[in-house]
C-alpha cells in the first residue's frame, strides 16, 4: 500500500538507480547483454528528461556500465550537463563519469573550460576538489593552457586540501602545457616548505616526477631536498626524496658524497622496510656514480650487501624479491661483492615463486666466471628439464645463451663444451628461441675458427636427425636450428667426414615441411656440398661416385622445384640446371671434366666474415644522394599488397642477397638442355641408379650404415676416420667436458694451493685468469668504410611529452613568461565556424558573455601566439623586469570591430625581477652547498658568483620613455635597487595580491601606453637637433607589404639580439598568416618557439588590416659578434581579397653590422682614462673620412645614435667616445674634426670588432641613406 502511494507521487524515485542496475545484472546472468541493452535504452530515455536528478542517476549507471566494458562516449554531453549542476551530489557523479570516460579525443571537452573554471573558483571546498580530481584525469592541452592560471591561484589557497590537489595537478598541467613550468616553478618550490605535510608531500611528488625525466634541471634544488630529507619524518616524503636523489647523483658526484652519510644513518636507524630499501637503492646509485671517489665506499657496499642479504633471507617473499632486485644493481659495478653471495642466489633459483626466480636469473648473469660457468649452466639446464611452463623454460634458455655469450664469450673456456650445450638445447620442446640458438651456432662457428671441425661434425649429426627437430615447424621454433646446421655444413664442408651422407640427409623428403627460408638454405648448401664432393673426388681421380651423387641430386632436387615458396623454387630450378650441366660435362671426359670441379668450387669461394650489427646503419650516404627522393613516381597503392610477410625477416633477407648473387653466376654458366639431352640424362640416371646400392635403401638409411655403405664406394671417402665416433646429441657430451674441466682444475688447484700456502694470498681472480681459453674468439667484424667518422649514437626513443618538459629552471623568469589568463575567446571572422559546431559555439558564447561581465577587468588576451611573441620579445633584463608596465608591447591598436586584437596586457608574475636575482642566488647557494664538502670547490663557485655581482654593480641604464628620460641615472638605479630589495621582502605578500594588482596594471597600461616600445638607450640622451634620425631601415618592400627594421640589444644578454620589424600593409586588403623565417647561420639563429625545428617559420602574431602597420619582434641568438652577420630570409603572407586570397612571399637580406651589438653605456672620464691606461686595450685602428654633414656635432650625434656610443668628454674639435658590446668588449674612440675631415682613432681588446665598427662609422658618416 505504502509503496504504491509513494510510487504515485514520486515516480522518479522508483526509477532504476545504480543498485537496481547491479542487482538486475546479477539476476540476469544468462542474458546479460540483452538486459544491459534494455537498461541502456532506459538510460537514454532518462537522459532526455529535464530533471537533473534523473540524469545524474542515469550517468551514474553509465559509469558502472563503462567499467563492464560498454562504450559510453555517446553520453559525453549528458555527462557535462550533470557536471554543471550546482549541486555537489550531482556534480560529483558527473565528474566521476567524466574522469572514467573522457580522454583527449573527447570533443565536448572544449565546452567544459568555463564550467571547470567556475568550479575551481567555487566557494565550496569540495566543488573545487572534485573538479581538480576530475580534471587530473581528462586534462588536455587546451584545458591546461586555459586553466593553468586558476590552478596557480588555488596553489595559494588557504585550505590545505585544495593546495594539495592544486599542487599535484600541476604535474598534469606541465605535461600538457610545458610553457607553464617556468612561470609556475617558483611557487611550486615554495610549496616544498608548506606548513601542511600533505601539500609538502604533493610538491615533493610533483618535483620528483618532473626530475625523473629531466634530472639535470633540478640539481639546484638539491640543498632544499637535502634539508627536507634530514628534517622530514614523513616516510612517503622521505622515500620520494631519496628516490629523487638516486636520479640526481649520476649527474653530480659531489652530491653523492654528501648523501652517503645521512643515508647510511637512515639505513641503520629506520624500522620501515620501504625506507630502508629505498635508502639502499640510492646508496647504490651513489656508489655507481662515484665508484672511486669515496674512501670508505667498500664499507658502504658491504653495508648494502649485508642488508640486502637480510632482505633476501627474509621469509617475506616481497622483501626477498626486492633484495634480489637491488642486488642486481650492485652487480653492475661491484660484481665481486655480490659473487660472495652466490650460494644464496642459486638457492633462490629453486624458489617456488616465479618472480623471484627471474630476479635470481638476472643476477646469475653477473655471477659467472670462467671457473663456474659450466657449473652454473649445468644447473640451469637441470632446472630447464624440471621447469614446467614453457615461458620460464624459454627464459632459462635465453639466459644460458646470454650468460655464455656475454662480452664475446669471455667466460667460455671450452667451445666444444659450448657447442654441445647448444646442441643439447635443441632438444628442448616447444621453445620459441630456435632462432637464437641458430644464431649462436653460426656465430660461434664463424668466429672461433678452431671449433669449426667440431661444430660442423655436430651440425651434420643434427641434419641427420632433422626429423626430430622438424616436428615443430612453427615460426621461430627449434627447426630454425636446421638453418644454421645446413649453412655450416655447406660453408665448411672440408671438415665433414662424410659429405655424401650429409647430402643425403639434406635431401630427405620431409625437408619440404620446413619453413621456406630454411629450405632455400638447404638448396643452396646442397650444391655447396656437391661442389665439395666433386672437388674431393677430383683429387683422388674417382669420378664414379661423384656421378652417382650428381644423379641422386638430379632426382631429388625437383621436389624443391614444386615448393610453394618462391625463393626455394627459384634456387632449386637453378641448382637443377647446374647439376645437369655438371653431369653433362662429366660425360665428356678429359679436361672439361677436370675443369668443372674448379669452376664449381669457384662459385662458392671466399670467406664470409661476420658483419657488425650496425654496419648497415653506418654506411655513409654518398654526397648528393637523397634517400627520401623518389627514384620513379610513387607506385600505386595496390602494389604494396604483394609485399612479403613481415615474419620472414632477417634470415630470409640475408638469403635474398646471397641467393641472387649466386643465381646470376649460375645462370651465366648453365646452358639450356635440349629435350633430347634431358631424356638421355634421365636414362643414364636410371642405369646408374640400378648399379648404386645407395639408391635401394634411399633415405631410410641411418648415419651408421651410411659410413659403411660409403666405404664400399671406394676411394672417394678413404680419408674417413672411423676412429672418431659420430656424436649423438645427448646430455653426456656437455657433461663430459665439464668433468674433464673439473678434473683438470682440481689438478691445478692442488698445485696452486701448495703455492698459495707459501704466499698466503687468497686471490680468486688470480686463479681465474689462469684458466686458459682453449679457442680464440675472433672479434673481427665487417664495418663499412667511412663508418668511423660517424658517431655511435643510440637512437633515443624517449617520450616526446617529457622532452618538452626539459626546461631550464634556473634561468631567471622572463617578464613575458606568464601563465595565460582567462580571456574572451575571439573567433576571427575570416575563420567561419563549421556549421555543425554552431549550436555548441552559441552556448559557449552565452556562458562566456555572462562571465565576461563579471570578469571584465580581468579579461585579457591570452592567445597563444601573442604570448609566445611577448616571450621572444622581452628577453629578461632584470632592470626591465622591475617595470613591467614600461615593457608594454607596441601594438598599434587597430581600429576595426572585427580584428582579433584586443589590447595586449601584461600580468607579470609579481616576482619578475626578484626571482631573477633570487634564482641566481639559489644557484650560488647550490654551488656553495655542494662545494662545502669539496676542497677544490672555491674555484668552482667563483665564476658562478661573478655574474650576480656584476648585475648589481652595473648602473642599470634606464629604459624609460619620453619625459622620464632626463632622470638622473644613478639616482634612479639606486632607487631601483632599493625597490628590488623591498620587492624581495614583500614577495610573499605580493604573490597573494598579485591578481588584484595585475588588474590595475592592465587598465592603466591599456589606455595610456598603447604603443610604447623599448627605446634604445642611445636615443634617450641625444637631444634631437639635426634632422630627425631613425634607426629603422628598410628591410624589404613589394607591392603589398613593406618591412622596416631596427635591431635592439640589451647589455645584460650577451647572446641575444632583438630584431624589431614594422610590417606595413600597402594593399587595400587584409593581410594575414604572416610567417617570418630566416636561414640560420652557425653564428646567428632565430629563436623559435619551443619544439620548433630550425627551419620552421615564426608566425607573426597579428593580421594587418588594409593600410595599417604593426610591429613584430624576433629574437636572435648570437654566438660571436666581432664580424657582421648577413642573413637571408623570407616573409610569407596571405592577402585576403574579396575574390579569394593569394599566397605571396617576399625575400629579404638582413644585415647585423657590428655596431648593432654595441650599447652606449655611460662612462666617467676617470674610468675612461684608467681603461685606456690599463693596457688591456691592445688593438688600435684608425679611420679617416669626409662626412656628408659639415658639422662636428651632427657627425658625433650620428655616431652616437647609429653606432651606439656615448660621449665621454668633448673639447673643441675632438671628443672621446665609449661603447661596450653586449659581450663586454670595451671600445674607446677618439674622434677629431679637422677642416671637414673626421679622424677616428679606436682602441679595443678585440681588433676585428674595432675595425668593423670603424667601418660602420664610416658608412654612417659618409652615406646618406641607411
Amino acid at each position, binding site marked *: 500500500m505504502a509503496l504504491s502511494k509513494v510510487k504515485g507521487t*514520486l515516480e522518479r524515485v522508483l526509477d532504476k538507480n*545504480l*543498485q537496481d542496475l547491479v542487482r538486475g545484472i546479477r539476476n540476469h546472468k544468462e542474458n546479460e547483454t540483452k538486459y544491459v541493452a534494455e537498461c541502456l535504452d532506459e538510460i537514454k530515455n532518462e537522459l532526455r528528461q529535464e530533471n537533473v536528478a534523473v540524469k545524474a542517476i542515469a550517468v551514474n549507471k553509465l559509469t558502472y556500465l563503462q*567499467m563492464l566494458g560498454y562504450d559510453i562516449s555517446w553520453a559525453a554531453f549528458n555527462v557535462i550537463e550533470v557536471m554543471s549542476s550546482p549541486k555537489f551530489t550531482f556534480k*560529483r557523479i558527473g565528474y566521476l563519469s567524466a574522469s572514467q570516460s573522457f580522454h583527449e579525443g573527447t570533443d565536448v571537452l572544449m565546452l567544459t573550460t568555463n564550467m571547470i573554471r567556475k568550479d575551481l573558483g567555487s566557494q565550496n571546498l569540495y566543488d573545487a576538489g572534485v573538479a581538480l580530481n576530475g580534471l587530473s584525469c581528462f*586534462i588536455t592541452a587546451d584545458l591546461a593552457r586555459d586553466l593553468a592560471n586558476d590552478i596557480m591561484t588555488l596553489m595559494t589557497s588557504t585550505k590545505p586540501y585544495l593546495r594539495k590537489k592544486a599542487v599535484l595537478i600541476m604535474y598534469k598541467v606541465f605535461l600538457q602545457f610545458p610553457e607553464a613550468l617556468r612561470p609556475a616553478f617558483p611557487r611550486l618550490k615554495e610549496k616544498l616548505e608548506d606548513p601542511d605535510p*600533505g601539500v609538502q608531500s604533493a610538491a615533493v611528488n610533483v618535483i620528483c616526477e618532473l626530475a625523473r625525466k629531466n634530472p639535470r634541471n633540478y640539481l639546484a634544488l638539491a640543498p632544499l631536498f637535502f634539508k627536507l630529507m634530514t628534517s622530514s619524518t614523513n616516510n612517503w616524503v622521505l622515500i620520494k626524496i631519496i628516490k629523487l636523489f638516486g636520479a640526481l647523483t649520476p649527474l653530480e658526484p659531489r652530491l653523492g658524497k654528501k648523501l652517503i652519510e645521512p643515508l647510511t644513518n637512515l639505513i641503520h636507524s629506520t624500522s620501515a622496510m620501504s625506507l630502508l*630499501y629505498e635508502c639502499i637503492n640510492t646508496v647504490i646509485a651513489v656508489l655507481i656514480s662515484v665508484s672511486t671517489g669515496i674512501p670508505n665506499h667498500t664499507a658502504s657496499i658491504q653495508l648494502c650487501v649485508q642488508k640486502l642479504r637480510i632482505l633476501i633471507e627474509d621469509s617475506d617473499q*616481497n622483501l626477498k624479491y626486492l633484495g634480489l632486485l637491488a642486488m642486481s644493481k650492485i652487480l653492475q659495478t661491484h660484481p665481486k661483492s655480490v659473487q660472495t653471495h652466490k650460494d644464496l642466489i642459486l638457492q633462490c633459483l629453486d624458489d617456488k615463486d616465479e618472480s623471484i626466480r*627471474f630476479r635470481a636469473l638476472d643476477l646469475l648473469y653477473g655471477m659467472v666466471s670462467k671457473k663456474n660457468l659450466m657449473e652454473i649452466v649445468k644447473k640451469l639446464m637441470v632446472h630447464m628439464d624440471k621447469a614446467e611452463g614453457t615461458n620460464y623454460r624459454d627464459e632459462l634458455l635465453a639466459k644460458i645463451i646470454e650468460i655464455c655469450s656475454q662480452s664475446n664469450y669471455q667466460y667460455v673456456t671450452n667451445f666444444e663444451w659450448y657447442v654441445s650445450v647448444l646442441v643439447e638445447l635443441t632438444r628442448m620442446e616447444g621453445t620459441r628461441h630456435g632462432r637464437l640458438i641458430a644464431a649462436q651456432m653460426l656465430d660461434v662457428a664463424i668466429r672461433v675458427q678452431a671449433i669449426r671441425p667440431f661444430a660442423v661434425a655436430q651440425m651434420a649429426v643434427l641434419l641427420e636427425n632433422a626429423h626430430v627437430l622438424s616436428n615443430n615447424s612453427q615460426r621461430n621454433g627449434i627447426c630454425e636450428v636446421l638453418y644454421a646446421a645446413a649453412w655450416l655444413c655447406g660453408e665448411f664442408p672440408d671438415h665433414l667426414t662424410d659429405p655424401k651422407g650429409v647430402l643425403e640427409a639434406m635431401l630427405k623428403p620431409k625437408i619440404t615441411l620446413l619453413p621456406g627460408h630454411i629450405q632455400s638454405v638447404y638448396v643452396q648448401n646442397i650444391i655447396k656440398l656437391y661442389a665439395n664432393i666433386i672437388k674431393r673426388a677430383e683429387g683422388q681421380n674417382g669420378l664414379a661416385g661423384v656421378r652417382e651423387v650428381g644423379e641422386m641430386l638430379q632426382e631429388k632436387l625437383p621436389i624443391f622445384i614444386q615448393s610453394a615458396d618462391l625463393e626455394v623454387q627459384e634456387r632449386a630450378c637453378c641448382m637443377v640446371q647446374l647439376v645437369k650441366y655438371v653431369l653433362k660435362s662429366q660425360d665428356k671426359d678429359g679436361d672439361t671434366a677436370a675443369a668443372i670441379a674448379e669452376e664449381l668450387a669457384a662459385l662458392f669461394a671466399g670467406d664470409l666474415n661476420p658483419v657488425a650489427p650496425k654496419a648497415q646503419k653506418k654506411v655513409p650516404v654518398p654526397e648528393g644522394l637523397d634517400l627520401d627522393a623518389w627514384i620513379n613516381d610513387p607506385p600505386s597503392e595496390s602494389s604494396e599488397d604483394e609485399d612479403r610477410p613481415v615474419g620472414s625477416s632477417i634470415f630470409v633477407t640475408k638469403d635474398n642477397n646471397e641467393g641472387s648473387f649466386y643465381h646470376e653466376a649460375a645462370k651465366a654458366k648453365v646452358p639450356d638442355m635440349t629435350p633430347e639431352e634431358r631424356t638421355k640424362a634421365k636414362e643414364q640416371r636410371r642405369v646408374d641408379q640400378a648399379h648404386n646400392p645407395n639408391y635401394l635403401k634411399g633415405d631410410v638409411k641411418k648415419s651408421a650404415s651410411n659410413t659403411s655403405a660409403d666405404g664400399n664406394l671406394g676411394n672417394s671417402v678413404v680419408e674417413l676416420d672411423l676412429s672418431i665416433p659420430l656424436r649423438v646429441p645427448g646430455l653426456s657430451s656437455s657433461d663430459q667436458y665439464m668433468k674433464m674441466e673439473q678434473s683438470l682444475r682440481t689438478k691445478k688447484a692442488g698445485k696452486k694451493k701448495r703455492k698459495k700456502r707459501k704466499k698466503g694470498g687468497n686471490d680468486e681472480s688470480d686463479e681465474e685468469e689462469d684458466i686458459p681459453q682453449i679457442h680464440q674468439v675472433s672479434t673481427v667484424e665487417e664495418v663499412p668504410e667511412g663508418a668511423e667518422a660517424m658517431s655511435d649514437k643510440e637512437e633515443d626513443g624517449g617520450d616526446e611529452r617529457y622532452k618538452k618538459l626539459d626546461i631550464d629552471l634556473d634561468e631567471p623568469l622572463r617578464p613575458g613568461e606568464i601563465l595565460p589568463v582567462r580571456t574572451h575567446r575571439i573567433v576571427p571572422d575570416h575563420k567561419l565556424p563549421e556549421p555543425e559546431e554552431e549550436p555548441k559555439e552559441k552556448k559557449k558564447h552565452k556562458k562566456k558573455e555572462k562571465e565576461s561581465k563579471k570578469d571584465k577587468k580581468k579579461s585579457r588576451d591570452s592567445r597563444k601566439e601573442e604570448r609566445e611573441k611577448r616571450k621572444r620579445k622581452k628577453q629578461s633584463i632584470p632592470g626591465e623586469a622591475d617595470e613591467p608596465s614600461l615593457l608594454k608591447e607596441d601594438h598599434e591598436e587597430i581600429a576595426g570591430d572585427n580584428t582579433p586584437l584586443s589590447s595586449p596586457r601584461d600580468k607579470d608574475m609579481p616576482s619578475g625581477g626578484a626571482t631573477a636575482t633570487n634564482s641566481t642566488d639559489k644557484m650560488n647557494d647550490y654551488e656553495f652547498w655542494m662545494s662545502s664538502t669539496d676542497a677544490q670547490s672555491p674555484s668552482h663557485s667563483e665564476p658562478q658568483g661573478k655574474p650576480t655581482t656584476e648585475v648589481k654593480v652595473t648602473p642599470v641604464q634606464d629604459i624609460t620613455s619620453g619625459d622620464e628620460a632626463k632622470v638622473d641615472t644613478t639616482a634612479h638605479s639606486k632607487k631601483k635597487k632599493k625597490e628590488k630589495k623591498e620587492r624581495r621582502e614583500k614577495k610573499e605578500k605580493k604573490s597573494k595580491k598579485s591578481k588584484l594588482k595585475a588588474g590595475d596594471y592592465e587598465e592603466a597600461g591599456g589606455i595610456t601606453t598603447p604603443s610604447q616600445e623599448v627605446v634604445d638607450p642611445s636615443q634617450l640622451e641625444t637631444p634631437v637637433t639635426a634632422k630627425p634620425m631613425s634607426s629603422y631601415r628598410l628591410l624589404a618592400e613589394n607591392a603589398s607589404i613593406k618591412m622596416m627594421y631596427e635591431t635592439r640589444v640589451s647589455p645584460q644578454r650577451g647572446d641575444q639580439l632583438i630584431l624589431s620589424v614594422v610590417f606595413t600593409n600597402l594593399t587595400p586588403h587584409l593581410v594575414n598568416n604572416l610567417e617570418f623565417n630566416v636561414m640560420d647561420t652557425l653564428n646567428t639563429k632565430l629563436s623559435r618557439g619551443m619544439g620548433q625545428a630550425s627551419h620552421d617559420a615564426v608566425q607573426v602574431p597579428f593580421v594587418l588590416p588594409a593600410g595599417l602597420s604593426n610591429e613584430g619582434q624576433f629574437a636572435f641568438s648570437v654566438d660571436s659578434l666581432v664580424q657582421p652577420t648577413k642573413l637571408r630570409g623570407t616573409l610569407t603572407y596571405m592577402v585576403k581579397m574579396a575574390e579569394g586570397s593569394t599566397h605571396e612571399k617576399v625575400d629579404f637580406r638582413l644585415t647585423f653590422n657590428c655596431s648593432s651589438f654595441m650599447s652606449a653605456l655611460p662612462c666617467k672620464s676617470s674610468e675612461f682614462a684608467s681603461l685606456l691606461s690599463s693596457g688591456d686595450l691592445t688593438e688600435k685602428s684608425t679611420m679617416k673620412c669626409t662626412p656628408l654633414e659639415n658639422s662636428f656635432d651632427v657627425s658625433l650625434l650620428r655616431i652616437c645614435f647609429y653606432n651606439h656610443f656615448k660621449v665621454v668628454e668633448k673639447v673643441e674639435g675632438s671628443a672621446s667616445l665609449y661603447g661596450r658590446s653586449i659581450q663586454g668588449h670595451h671600445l674607446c674612440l677618439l674622434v677629431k674634426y679637422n677642416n671637414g675631415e673626421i679622424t677616428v682613432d679606436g682602441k679595443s681588446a678585440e681588433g676585428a670588432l674595432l675595425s668593423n665598427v670603424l667601418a660602420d662609422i664610416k658608412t654612417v658618416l659618409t652615406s646618406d641613406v641607411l
Partner: protein
Amino acid sequence: MIKAILVFNNHGKPRLSRFYQYYPEDMQQQIVRETFHLVSKRDDNVCNFLEGGTLIGGSDFKIIYRHYATLYFVFCVDSSESELGILDLIQVFVETLDKCFENVCELDLIFHVDKVHYILAELVMGGMVLETNMTEIITRIEEQNKLEKSEAGIAAAPARAVSALKEMNIPQKVKDMKLPDLPSIGNLKF
C-alpha cells in the same frame, strides 16, 4: 606514477577499474582479463610484485597487488613509486573502505562502486598519491557525505524510504566477504 588501479574478485569480475591513462573500453577489459590471468595463478605465499604484462606499461612498470578474501586489489605502477610504499597504500585503501562501509565486503563494492571511487579519489589523484593519512582521508569523505545529505534534504526522504523497501527484497544482506584480520605487516608500517 600509478597507471591503473583495478579491483576484481576471484573469478576476474571487475569491481573497480580506474585507469590514469586513456585506454578504449575493450582494451580496458582486456587489461583486466590479462591482469587477472597473471595474478590469479599465483599462490598466496609468493611475492606481491609482478613484472608488467605486455598490455599495460612495459619494462618500467610493475604490477603490485594484494589479495583479500575474495578480492584482488591491483595497482600498476612505474619505477618512480616505491614497491613497499604501494603495498602500504593498498592497505590504507582497504582499511579506509573497511571504516567507511563498516566491515567492508565484496557486496559493498558491488553495489556502491561510485562510493569506492570517491574514496579512492581521496587517496590517489591523476595517478599520483594524494594522501596516505587515514584519519585525514576519512574526515574528508565524511564531510563530503554530510554535504551530500544536506543537499538531498527532505526531498531525499522518500527516496531513502523506497531504497529501504527495495533493500527489503533481498532476504538478508549476506555479507559474504568478511574482511579477515588484515595481515599485519608491522614492519612495513609507516
